[in-house]
């Protein structure tokens, strides 16, 4: 005796099925990340043993000079590269949004191109250029390379905010006697600050996590953290990696949280 399956219950079953699938996907997405964090507290590299929680790996970390040096290097690199990218990217966004010229689609394509060209190609291409121009690899080449990779993100964020900018504020400023330069300084830039800071945070994050390019543009002395971790993963797999990974995750997600906070504060005023 089969129960009558009404249309409504069929819909409800479909919904439940959908929820299950979506839930499974989210579990799949979070599983590795959670595993890394848990493993960073475990004695064994691949066993999550809840009875033996340890902070050994973190202690190792904070005394491991090469890793700390790489971490410091990454942060320095991130700050410098994002400063450069934010400056260039904001200029590009202003030109793109405010400029009255033809060929904007081509310009957009040019500015966003680094996003669709495979990273490996950008990596070796710049390597070739550095060698041809005899620029020694190190912080400089890393800053240059990262800025190219980060630029599209900055352009996207700043121009999105700029599109919605209330131009009557700038007109009012002009009407009240402000030269274009002063209007920029007193009105436009201060009101664009949240977007620019947001872009800077994202820029830092992208630089901090950048692997492929860094592998080709760094040296064994000047290397950011991801490069060090990559070689560790390939050659000597120590349990420390989970702790390093967790630290990296914390920094990245901290930056992201800061970004969200700025967004929420901007929306509420």
């Amino acid at each position, binding site marked *: 005796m089969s129960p009558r399956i009404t249309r409504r219950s069929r819909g409800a079953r*479909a919904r439940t099925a*959908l*929820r299950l699938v*979506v839930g499974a*996907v*989210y579990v*799949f*997405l*979070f599983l*590795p*990340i959670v*595993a*890394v964090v848990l*493993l960073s507290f475990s004695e064994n*590299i*691949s*066993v999550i043993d809840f009875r033996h929680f340890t902070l050994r790996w973190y202690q190792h970390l904070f005394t491991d000079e090469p890793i700390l040096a790489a971490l410091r290097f990454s942060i320095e690199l991130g700050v410098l590269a994002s400063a450069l990218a934010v400056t260039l990217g904001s*200029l*590009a966004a*202003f*030109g*793109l949004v*405010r*400029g*009255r*010229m033809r060929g904007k*689609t081509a310009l957009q394509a040019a*500015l*966003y*191109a*680094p*996003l*669709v*060209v*495979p*990273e*490996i*190609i950008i990596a*070796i*291409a*710049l390597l*070739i*250029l550095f060698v041809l121009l005899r620029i020694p690899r190190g912080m400089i080449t890393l800053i240059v390379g990262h*800025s*190219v990779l980060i630029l599209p993100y900055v*352009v*996207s*964020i700043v121009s999105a905010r700029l599109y919605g900018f209330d131009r009557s504020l700038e007109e009012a400023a002009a009407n009240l006697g402000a030269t274009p330069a002063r209007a920029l300084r007193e009105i436009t830039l201060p009101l664009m600050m949240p977007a620019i800071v947001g872009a800077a945070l994202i820029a830092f994050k992208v630089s901090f*996590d950048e692997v*492929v390019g860094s592998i080709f543009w760094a040296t064994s002395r000047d290397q950011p953290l*991801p490069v060090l*971790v990559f070689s560790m*993963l390939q050659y000597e797999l120590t349990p420390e990696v*989970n702790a390093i*990974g967790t630290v*990296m995750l914390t920094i*990245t*997600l901290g930056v*992201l949280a800061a970004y*969200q906070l700025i967004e929420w504060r901007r929306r509420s005023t």
Partner: protein
Amino acid sequence: MTSRPAPPTGWAALAPPLAWLGVFFLLPMIAVFAYSFALRMPGGAVMFGFATANYARIGESALYLWTTLRSLRIAVVVTAATLLVSYPVAYYLALVAARWRLALFVLLIVPWWSSILVKNFAWVALLADSGVINRLLLQLGLIDHPLKLLYNEIAVVIGLVHVLIPFMVMPINAVLERLDRRLIEAAANLGSSPLRAFLEVVLPLSLPGVAAGALLTFILAFGSFITPALLGSERTLMIANLIQAQFMEAFDWPFGAALSMVLLGLVLALLVVFNRLIGLDRLWKAAR
């Protein structure tokens, strides 16, 4: 009569970033192009010319042909699997979830923005013979010997799908979000079941987003380097790994450049086709 005030200087603002990209993005690409026609001399020097020897070598060598085909195959499988898994999520986010939408979005961003290194080496810990998954299956008695889940194509596919799901979800979600709900209601009103409404209304209208997501996923998978390096083996090398080998081990830069041009050529071909069919501006929005 009187002079018109000078028009706003859009080009002045665009000049520095465009110049920067010109020197540090366009110029290197040209350099790669030039290198691909050069030859590596014994002893390491590079002689520039118009030799097509590098390209010929790619075409003649089984290793490079197979690697290209393998990369294509992996990219296709990854794109298909990612699409299958991501579409429901995008659908749910855009059309079903109500109060949870914001939370789910934020939750999606967390794995998206986590470092690819962390995500990949997590799978090492999970898929290894003595890793989390095998231990669990052994403990549960579902298997007798550990499954070979690591350092093969399966691991690479899993790793890539894991990384690329958000790239597929976002464009599809963006399109579905903008879908006029009333279209679905109208379909229901005219008597179609939810399934038919989906197949005939939602799915077709979401295709541009699907295409953008699929293209992005495919390009990222096809050119991926880290994941096959960490989760694969010599038998699962992809194009990017070969390129890296040329530059950092074999030091045959001209040949590496030729390989890169092949990869770039395929990607550009895809982009051109996509632009013809749908338009590249969708892709920029998807890629951010």
